[in-house]
């Protein structure tokens, strides 16, 4: 049988937890990464299995094992739902610490394209987790243990150099493309809803429903890590593709782990003024605050918004 390796000194304390995880897999349904890629090896249980493999010595430390453990965006929905009470993200963090000490520097949740970086250091101050620093000769360095992937650095970066790694479609370019694709392929398309990962968005199940491909919808929900990362150009982009309105769903006050909701609120308010100044009804851009998991409220807010857009009609 197995003997655990001594190299994982942070992970070691979770040995009992790794046995107590009953591996039911019920965390799958809560993981946006799994829902996006559809690979079981991206689900939270997969990371627990990887952590066990590393600690027990069944699996040697490798780039690919590190990649698995680093690919988490700390939405913590798996943790909130775990019936065995496993503190999944704390296990992942300790595994990451050990792997980093061994020289495996996984992709990290956010990074900076050094070539584009102007060294303005705005992201250092904006990062709510103190994950960014400036090192001489290396430029902006992201601590992959501290970074929680909220993406606020992306919103503040004036040079477009900050980005989310392994973003499952949540980088600016991906989101813009997805918004444009929806607007141009659905005849009834009216609105884009940018939803924070915590909102338990409806319509995101692992199976394709009978009419999924042909169904004409009036809105599309685009999930991202945190409302705090929604840049101005991203929020305005759907209007270029003839959207009637844009909705932003964030967590209630005091409930955001990154205080990104407050940033989103300010930004939306600001953009509403901009819309007003160019004689577009500011109601076409709306922010709603949804408690985590309240699918019903979220759906009701979307329906109300779409009803309102139907009254306003298209932008002339």
């Amino acid at each position, binding site marked *: *049988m*197995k*003997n*655990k390796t001594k190299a994982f000194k942070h992970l070691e304390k979770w*040995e*009992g937890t790794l*046995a*107590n995880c*009953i*591996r*039911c*897999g*019920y965390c*799958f*349904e809560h993981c946006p990464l799994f829902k996006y890629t*559809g*690979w*079981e*090896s991206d689900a939270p*249980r*997969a990371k627990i*299995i*990887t952590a*066990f*493999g590393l*600690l*027990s010595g*069944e*699996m040697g430390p*490798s780039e*690919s*094992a590190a*990649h*698995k453990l680093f690919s988490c965006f700390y939405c913590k929905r798996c943790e909130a739902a775990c*019936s*065995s*009470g496993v503190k999944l993200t704390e296990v992942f963090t300790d595994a990451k610490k050990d792997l980093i000490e061994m020289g495996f520097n996984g992709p990290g949740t956010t990074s900076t394209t050094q070539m584009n970086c102007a060294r303005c250091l705005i992201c250092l101050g904006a990062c709510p987790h103190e994950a960014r620093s400036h090192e001489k000769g290396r430029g902006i360095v992201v601590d992959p243990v501290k970074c929680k992937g909220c993406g606020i650095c992306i919103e503040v970066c004036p040079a477009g150099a900050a980005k989310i790694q392994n973003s499952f479609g949540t980088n600016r370019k991906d989101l813009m493309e997805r918004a444009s694709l929806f607007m141009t392929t659905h005849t009834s398309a009216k609105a884009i809803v940018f939803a924070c990962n915590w909102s338990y968005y409806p319509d995101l*199940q*692992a*199976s*394709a*429903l*009978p009419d*999924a491909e042909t169904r004409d919808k009036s809105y599309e929900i685009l999930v991202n890590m945190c409302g705090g990362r929604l840049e101005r150009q991203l929020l305005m982009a759907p209007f270029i593709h003839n959207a009637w309105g844009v909705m932003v769903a964030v967590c209630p006050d005091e409930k955001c782990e990154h205080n990104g909701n407050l940033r989103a609120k300010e930004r939306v308010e600001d953009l509403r003024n901009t819309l007003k100044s160019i004689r577009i009804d500011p109601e076409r851009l709306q922010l709603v605050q949804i408690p985590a998991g309240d699918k019903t409220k979220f759906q009701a807010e979307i329906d109300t918004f779409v009803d309102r857009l139907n009254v306003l009609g298209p932008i002339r």
Partner: protein
Amino acid sequence: MKTIDEERLRAIVGEANIKTDPSDLYIYGSDSSVHHAMPWAVVRPKTTAQVQAVLRYANEALIPVIARGGGSGMCGQTVPVMGGIILDMKGMNKILEINLADVYCRVEPGVVDDDLNLALKPHGMFFPPTPASSRIATIGGEIANNASGVRSVKYGATRDAVLGMKVVLPNGDLVNLGARTRVEASGYQLHKLMVGSEGTLGIVVEATLSFVPIPEFRCMGIANFNTLKDAGDAISSIMASGAIPSMLELVDDVAIKAVNKTMNLGLKEVAAALIFEADGMVREAVDYEINKMKVICQKHNGEDIYASYDPKERDKIFLGRKSLFPALSKYDDNLASTSLADDMAVPYSKMAEMAGKIHEIADKYNIVMTAYGHCGSGCMHTKILMDTKRKDQWESARKAITEVYDYVRSVNGTTSAEHGIGLSKAESFKIEKADSLHLLSLIKKAVDPNNILNPGKLSQAPEDWVTATNLRYSVNS
């Protein structure tokens, strides 16, 4: 290990649908059971033609193929004990048709149970087998295991809801089995043979399933008992009375104490509790069933009996049962909740004796075992709580399980009611089915002469489940 022609697999499913990295393979070597073994590749087909092409290749190269759904199996059914290709069927996830006029739906095997119910709900319908893992369990996996759940006492198991299916055979041929009609009497019911075959006979690529209307009324009740015997007699009397419960669950004292300990629910710590439910379209009919069950519980010295239609009250009644699964895994930091001998079935009249036997055996071997389950369908669940680091605890578990199964067979019960055999239960399965094992192997050989589909499972599984694979725990030597 054989060499796999990765390029050929890539050409079939495309670069984006194959994984050969050791860490992916390690992850796909596990499910919800105690077992672990390494596959050689993970392939995610998107079409029937791709499944056919993979099987043609595997059959030619003699490489094992193991179909996998949600990976929620509890007995190691998808653990590749002889290596090979894992077919991750979650990529075939389309609900193809909901036909209300003919009361059937057609789905691909990777459709998640809850998602199917989400699609049926607007039509006032539901797919009833629904195991506890319905949030991740796929229809393909449910078919492979003949899954069932709390409402199977009234609505039956997966087998009862499968009308027909398309299956890819090991040589890559596609066959249509069953029909789209409610009844069929045309020869061997091969689609029913596929149900419960644990991926050893063919790969289901499409299933035609029946569904039923969502009842207008549900009423749930509870009764406490001071002896297990009284609770057991009540179960037997309810089922013998012709009552039609839509749920009939037993929870024993160990389970009640576990829930109280970890969740602080303050449930009355009696020897056993029965939770019963009836549903229907007419309230009077539901009342009739509930009253019948209440009177029977009373007759068998049931106490604190009450029932309610109110959804909040129903949730409260069911909370103890619902909390059991998490409560057992949080029972003690040093004890892990393992899925072993966890779903046998015995005749109704033996339910109480079975629960008593479980307690007796647990005491004898100094492990914690609890008895609960869907006693309305004869199914008894247990969990073995043990210190998985200690080798002697595994030895105790092994002996305890052998004794539990010896009892189950002695009263004409069966090894598995709903989780399947896989690796963990092969020992008892083989003893139980001793006189038909040869017939099983003849069927397997006729359909899969090269033994490529999930080899080493069911009747081929090793008797000793402890050494059948690596255990997924660190065990001190």
